[in-house]
C-alpha cells in the first residue's frame, strides 16, 4: 500500500506550506442582490457563499421568541462540492454543523433588538476543501455585517490539527483525511472568546494547547482580513454621506 507522506524532509507540507501557514484566503462582501447581506470566501480550494435575510417576520409565527430574534442557520453542501457526488438531502453532518455554526454566531449578534423576528443565515458550500465550517462562519459573519444587523464584533474561524506528529495550522483536504487530529475553532478577538470548538483525532494535552493557540492566532489574522473586506466594499460611503444632510439613515434604537 502506497504511503502518503504529509510532511517532506524539510518539514514542508504537501502544498508547500510551513506548519503554521494559512492557505490563501479571499473575501468579498455584498455579492448577491436579493439577500439583505452576503459574502463570498475562497480559502484554499474552499468556495463558500453566505447570505443573510433579516431581521424579518418570523414565519411560522410559533417559532418567534418574545424578547429577541430567532437565529436560523442552514449549512449545506452542493452535490458537486465534494470528490464524490453528495446527495442534496441534508445529512446528519450538515445538521450538526448547522447547529454548531449557529451557536458560534449567536453570541456576536445583538438579537435582543428584534423581538419576534428571525435572522436567517444560509451557508452554501460550492466547493469543499477541509475547514468548511470555519470558512462558512467567517463569511456568514461578514454577511451579517453587510445586512446591517447590529453585532458586538465579527467572528472568524480557522482550524488547526496534527499531521505526522506535528501540530499544524489550517488543514487541507488530504491532511484532514489522513492526519492525526482536526480542531476547528471560531473566535471573537475583541472579547477573546471562543464560540465554536470541536475536535476529533488524538492529541496530548500539550499538543492540544499548542493547536488551540495556533488556531486562535490565525483567527485574529482572519479578523483583520474581514475588516479589510468591509472597507473595500464600503469605502465609497463617506462621499455619499457628505452629499446628504438631514434625515439620518434608519437606525437601531438604544
Amino acid at each position, binding site marked *: 500500500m502506497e504511503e502518503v507522506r504529509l510532511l517532506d524532509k524539510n518539514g514542508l507540507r504537501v502544498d508547500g506550506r510551513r506548519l503554521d501557514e494559512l492557505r490563501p484566503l479571499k473575501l468579498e462582501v455584498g455579492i448577491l442582490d436579493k439577500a*439583505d*447581506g452576503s459574502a463570498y470566501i475562497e480559502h484554499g480550494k474552499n468556495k463558500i457563499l453566505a447570505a443573510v435575510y*433579516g*431581521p*424579518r*417576520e418570523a414565519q411560522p409565527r410559533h417559532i418567534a421568541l418574545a*424578547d429577541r430574534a430567532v437565529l436560523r442557520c442552514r449549512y449545506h453542501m452542493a452535490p458537486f462540492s465534494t470528490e464524490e457526488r453528495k446527495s442534496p438531502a441534508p445529512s446528519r453532518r450538515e445538521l450538526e454543523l448547522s447547529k454548531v455554526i449557529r451557536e458560534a454566531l449567536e453570541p*456576536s449578534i*445583538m438579537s435582543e433588538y*428584534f*423581538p*419576534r*423576528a*428571525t435572522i436567517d443565515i444560509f451557508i452554501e458550500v460550492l466547493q469543499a476543501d477541509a475547514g468548511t465550517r470555519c470558512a462558512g462562519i467567517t463569511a456568514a459573519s461578514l454577511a451579517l*455585517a*453587510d*445586512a*446591517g*444587523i*447590529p*453585532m*458586538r*464584533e*465579527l467572528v472568524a474561524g480557522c482550524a488547526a490539527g496534527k499531521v505526522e506528529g506535528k501540530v499544524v495550522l489550517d488543514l487541507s483536504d488530504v491532511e484532514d483525511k489522513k492526519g492525526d487530529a482536526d480542531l476547528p475553532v471560531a473566535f*471573537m478577538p*475583541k472579547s477573546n472568546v471562543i464560540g465554536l470548538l470541536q475536535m476529533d483525532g488524538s492529541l496530548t494535552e500539550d499538543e492540544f494547547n499548542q493547536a488551540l493557540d495556533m488556531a486562535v492566532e490565525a483567527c485574529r489574522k482572519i479578523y483583520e482580513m474581514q*475588516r479589510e473586506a*468591509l*472597507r473595500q466594499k*464600503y*469605502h*465609497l*460611503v*463617506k*462621499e*455619499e*454621506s*457628505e*452629499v*446628504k*444632510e*438631514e*434625515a*439620518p*439613515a*434608519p*437606525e*437601531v*434604537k*438604544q
Partner: protein
Amino acid sequence: MTVYADKRQLVGPGDILAEGPFFAGENTYREGTKVFSSRIGLAEVVGNKIVVMAVKGVYIPRLDDIVVGRVTDIGMSGWQVDISAPYPAMLPLSETPMQRGRDMGRRDLGHIYGVGDLMIAQVIAFDRTRDPLLTTKGRGLGKVTSGRVARITPAKIPRIIGKKGSMITMLKKETGVDIVPGQNGVILAVGRNPDQERIAVEALYMIEREAHTSGLTDRVKAMITERNKGKSVT
C-alpha cells in the same frame, strides 16, 4: 477621554470608537469604559455622544414615519399592512377618515381597502411588545390608485430627498411626476402619463445606484432631459 473614530470615519461591528465618559448613541454600545460600533457606518462625535450612521439595514419603523404599504389581510376592525419591515403593521378602521357610526363587517372593510391595495400611511405607534400601528388620517395619506412603485434600500431615502429637498424638488419638476418617498424604502411616482412615471422610476434607481457620487443631481437631471426629448410634454 480618547476618541478613536470621528469625522465620518468608516467603522464596522466591534471597532472601538472612544474611551471615557461618552454617551453611547445610535448603533454603538458600551463595554466598561469603551464604546464600540455595532454596525457598518460612519462614526461621529456629537457633543459628548458617539453615534454611528448606519449605511444599510432593513427598515425598522419609527414613530411619525410616512410609509408606503400593501394590504395583506382584512381583520375584524382593520387591515394588516406589509410595510417591508420585520413586523406586519395594522391600520385600524378608527384610524381612517371614514364614516363612523355603523357596524362594518369584513366585506365592508374590503370595499375600503382590499388585499393588494397600496396606501400611504403614517406610523403612530411601535414598540418592542407590539407591531406597528398606522393611520391614514392626515394630508396626503390614503389609498393609492395609480402610479408606479420603486423599492430601494431605506438607507438611501435621504439621498432621494437631498440636501434641503434639492433632489426631490428637481425630480418632481423635471419629470412632472409627484414623488412620495416612504421611509420604508418604498417610493410612489404618480404622474399624468406612464412615460413620465417610467422616467421618474428610472431616475430613482439611478440615484440609489450612484448615491455615493458627487454631481448626482445634475447628472440625473441630464438623464431626465435626455429621456424627455422626442416625447410630447404635457
